[in-house]
């Protein structure tokens, strides 16, 4: 058929046939090259944390993606379409406008756990507290702390590291089960703490950008979210066949992974820390 083959002559049919298949081959090749080029560009622009979170969020279950306004009872059902980035959400301000709750008036139920009202909470169980010197202190909330217990190993980012909102803030493991905690806010790490200090990171906010914590849960919203989280945890720790069967009430015990070693902690850590 092709040049060099004895008796070959180009005809319209040959040209059409070869053209179509060259075009198909070219499309496949171009598609692969475009994907490779974009990956290279993403790596160069350090977009990996954002992409990782988008990918993880995409894989979360419907329950894990519930909108904060659903958890607080402001709407019956709504899933978050913005990867928990309420600052970019067009609906969030409308909810705030429609239901302006005077935060001081509503008692915050924290189910016996320590959730200081001045902190801002991320759905992945990290908290942020703005300090007077302009820095942001980041820690693990009380539910996360009780879940993990004293970690066997913690891997904190070095000072100077730039953290992205929803990027990995730190990693750790307990009893052979690894976990990672998402950064609740963007900023540069200026100091590291640890489990014993009660906080993990001190961040300097992104330069020339006022600290915006609207995407984090605060005040009255914490109650609804915590109730849902405790429900989720109860479901996760229940045997599959029976469904939720733990008695309601009481306070979540300390070092839960030690107290219930038979549970699938890999699954529990993954779901509670939003790592599908």
């Amino acid at each position, binding site marked *: *058929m*092709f040049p060099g*083959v004895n008796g070959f002559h180009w005809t319209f*049919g*040959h040209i059409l*046939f070869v053209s179509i*298949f060259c075009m*198909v*081959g070219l*499309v*496949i090749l171009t*598609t*692969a090259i*475009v*994907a*490779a080029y*974009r*990956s290279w560009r*993403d*790596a160069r622009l350090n*977009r*990996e944390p954002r*992409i*990782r979170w*988008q*990918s993880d*969020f*995409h*894989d979360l*279950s*419907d*329950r894990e*993606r*519930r909108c904060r306004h659903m958890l607080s009872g402001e709407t019956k*059902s*709504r*899933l*978050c*379409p913005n990867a928990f980035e309420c600052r970019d959400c067009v609906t969030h301000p409308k909810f705030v406008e429609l239901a302006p709750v005077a935060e001081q008036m509503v008692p915050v139920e924290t189910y016996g756990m320590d959730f200081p009202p001045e902190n801002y909470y991320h759905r992945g169980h990290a908290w942020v507290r703005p300090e007077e010197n302009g820095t942001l202190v980041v820690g693990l909330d009380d539910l996360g702390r009780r879940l993990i217990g004293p970690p066997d190993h913690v891997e904190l980012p070095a000072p100077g590291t730039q953290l992205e909102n929803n990027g990995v803030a730190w990693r750790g493991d307990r009893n052979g089960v*690894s976990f990672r905690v998402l950064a609740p806010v963007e900023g540069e790490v200026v100091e590291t703490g640890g489990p014993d200090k009660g906080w993990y990171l001190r961040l300097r906010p992104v330069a020339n950008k006022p600290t915006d914590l609207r995407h984090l849960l605060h005040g009255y919203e914490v109650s609804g979210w915590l109730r849902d989280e405790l429900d*989720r945890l109860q*479901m*996760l720790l*229940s045997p*599959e066949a*029976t*469904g*939720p069967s733990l008695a309601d009430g009481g306070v979540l015990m300390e070092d839960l992974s030690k107290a219930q070693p038979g549970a*699938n902690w*890999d*699954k529990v850590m*993954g*779901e509670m820390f939003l*790592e*599908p």
Partner: protein
Amino acid sequence: MPSFNDRNLIPRGLERCSLQGFALRLAPWLLLFAFGAYCIYLCLRFGLNQTNMDNRFAFGLWIFLDLTVIALGAGAFFTGFLLYLMKWKALKSVINSAVIIGFVCYSGAMVALAVDVGQPLRAWFTFWHPNVHSMLTEVSFCITCYLTVLAVEYIPILLKNRKLKQIPSFLVFEFELHKVIPVLAAVGTLLSFFHQGSLGGLYGVLRGRPFAYREGFAIWPSTFFLFILSAIAVGPSFILLTTKLAEKLSRKPLVRGGVYQMLGKTSGVLLTVYVALKSVDTLIWLNKTSQAAGFTPFEFYTFKPFGTWILFAEIVLLGLVPALLLLSSRMRARPAVLTGAAILACCGVALNRFVLTIQTLALPTLPFDEFLSYFPSWQEFGVFAAVLAYGVLVYAVSFRYLPLFPDEKQLTAPVETEELEYVSRS
């Protein structure tokens, strides 16, 4: 001796059996694959004398296998077409599985074809010295390109593995590749449309075989269109069946019931159209085409065991019956009926490919010709078994280590059933 634990390779939140249990279940398939690999070696080393095919009966078990798995594997391109181009979002829950089934089917068919054609080192001859008058030229070009597309579509699923996605460059590449998948889905649809058709056209143009010869439209015999239609009709049924089988074996719900209904209904509608056209085609062939070639109606069916029962089985029992069952929403709602109808539909397409391959070659065409019988040699069965075992192994390993069914985690979690408003995840 330290024991290897693969827990960190299994997607988080998914329950899988122990590694030992998994290995034990795969062992028979590995043995079968090893036996098949030996048969492949024998065929490639000593040639086609290892088979019961000859110059007169040149198409046998392997071509039947090729045609059947390529038809069943059509679920991959058709699901991709419906999801990415027609925006049937619910099919997202089976697309990964469909891609792997398509990849397994096409790569398995390529292996069987390579053994059948022989001389694999000269495979490039197909592309440099093709017979441009043969439908097979178009088939080989299309299948090669489509297998490449399937391999590229498999990559993002592979990179979703828990360990692999920890590597930043893999994660980013998977993300970017996923964004361009609709382009590949469109290319796959184009390629599949033509090679499914050309495989049917291959038989339809056999003037010397009046049993297979058909008239048609322009250069394409009617079998060209019927092969496309039958493939896209049973593709969703095969996806349905494999998913049900995976559910049965893993004892876990993997997709929502609505997805099964959607696949079943799609299959039902297309199968109905196919059966109608196939019936018209058969009537034209019996009353016009074959008579023009000097054959009276039903003369082809006087050779046992290929009596008229095979025509009835192909069109009515394995065509019309599953089509009607899948069309009826009341019948489709019963899981046993849905599964049974899907099995019948898949068997129907297999029988159609069997008839066109084996029955066509067995029937005499000239006055001095005789009815031939053919039974595959054990080496041929061995190659068949190798392809089957290869498919099971690839699918089983993928099921264990890759998130094939995105809804699995949610469906297996003991949460309350609450209807949530669906918001796009984009």
